[in-house]
């Protein structure tokens, strides 16, 4: 998985958990909470959907890694690739 693909995975999840948001111009380097109406429960949704859809676990200590699309991609892409390597 590339980092771009990883960003899209996160955006797809956000599209489901925040269906009223316009995601066409999300800036990857800007914190998601600074450009979208997302609260702490929504971030728990992102964690849950990564677990449900992709088998990815994000420990609580790493939640800050989900701050922006770029940081998500940095943090999650190796996890996705590690999973792919196992299968």
């Amino acid at each position, binding site marked *: 998985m590339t980092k771009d693909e990883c960003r899209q995975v996160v955006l797809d999840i956000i599209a489901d*958990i*925040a*269906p*009223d948001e316009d995601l066409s111009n999300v800036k990857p380097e800007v914190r998601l909470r600074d450009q979208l*109406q997302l609260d702490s*429960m929504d971030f*728990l*949704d992102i964690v*849950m959907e990564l*677990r*449900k859809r992709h088998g990815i676990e994000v420990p609580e200590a790493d939640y800050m890694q989900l701050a922006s699309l770029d940081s998500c991609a940095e943090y999650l892409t190796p996890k996705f690739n590690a999973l792919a390597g196992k299968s």
Partner: protein
Amino acid sequence: MKPARIVITGIGLTAPNGNTLADFRHSLLNGVSGVSRIEVRHMGQQLAGVCTYDPLKYQKRKELRVGTRAGSISIYCAREALADSGVAFDALPKDRVGIYLGCTEHGNVETENEIHNISKFAYDTKFWSHYHNPRTVANNPAGETSLNLGVTGPAYTLGAACAAGNLGLIHATQMLRLRECDFAICGGVSESSHTFGIFAGFKSQNALATHEDAAKASRPFDKARNGIVISEGGCLYTLERLEDAQARGAKIYAEIAGYHVNSDASDYVLPNPTRQAECVRAALGRSGLAARDIHIVNTHATATPLGDIQECEAIRAVFGVDCPETHINNTKSFIGHAMGAAGALELAGNLPSFNDGIVHPSINVDDLDPQCALPGLVLNTPRAAARIDTILNNSFGMLGINSTLIVRRFVA
């Protein structure tokens, strides 16, 4: 000192056969049922009353995703009631607004959904939703409404089984009289048709209605009645002290005339006609009205073989003689049993009688059960009444909770 006079100034509702009072009333006067067939988890097709209001009218899609059906119904009804009341809601001190919602139960839908969800993950509870607790707390419907409206006064639910709709109005009346709030949003809501457990429970009790024709399935007082049609719905009112309503020039639907709540203390599920009659008489006593002064008695009857007979026994004991102007009807025959919303919806369906002078009937009675043959029963077609100045609304529930609410035409 006389207690403050309390009046109804706004109504918002969603019933299986109408999403406004006007539509609901039209359905009740034209024999329009709201019962259809839905797919129920683990049980296949079942008869149910389903509401068709637009949830997006007052909520965003994310709020609907996070919240509950009962919360959504409550918000819709509250917003509709406020609009109907004509109150300048933005100008009201929000800490003086009370929200009092009756519920039969709350949380079963969400718990069932979560168990179904984790069943797909080998029951691993790490897949259990973090929304489970805010969705299932008993105050959820009232809490979601307070969030939507920005109300900072008391907002909570009253658990009273199927008497709960009346309880919402009764409690709001008490809180207004105690000056715990200055403006009340109250009534009852139910999302029960979204839980398979209630269907399965009634089926195990042999109390779940069946019929080839969905529209004919809910048939209180009919000899062939065979149980309850489970429905969702909601009906919320705005209640105010009379002087406040008059000061703002509000239209007034009716005045709260009397009420009573008591308990059978005799059985988990079987009703007790002696206690029901006591409840009705106590409400009459509080209202200062005699039985013969009541022009519409809206029954609770749910179409269970025994329950209808027992309520009729209670009504016969109070209204059986010397009540020539008392008409008796039933609303569940149109919409099924909307559980916590039932009492509030059924009162609303009758309130227009003060203006149109017509009593809506109890439909689907092809063969009247002789044990339910009450004098004054209005069957199958609406009846024009010489006088309608009072309505008595019965709602009873499991564990033996009984409620009677009486409203009268408002006369200054």
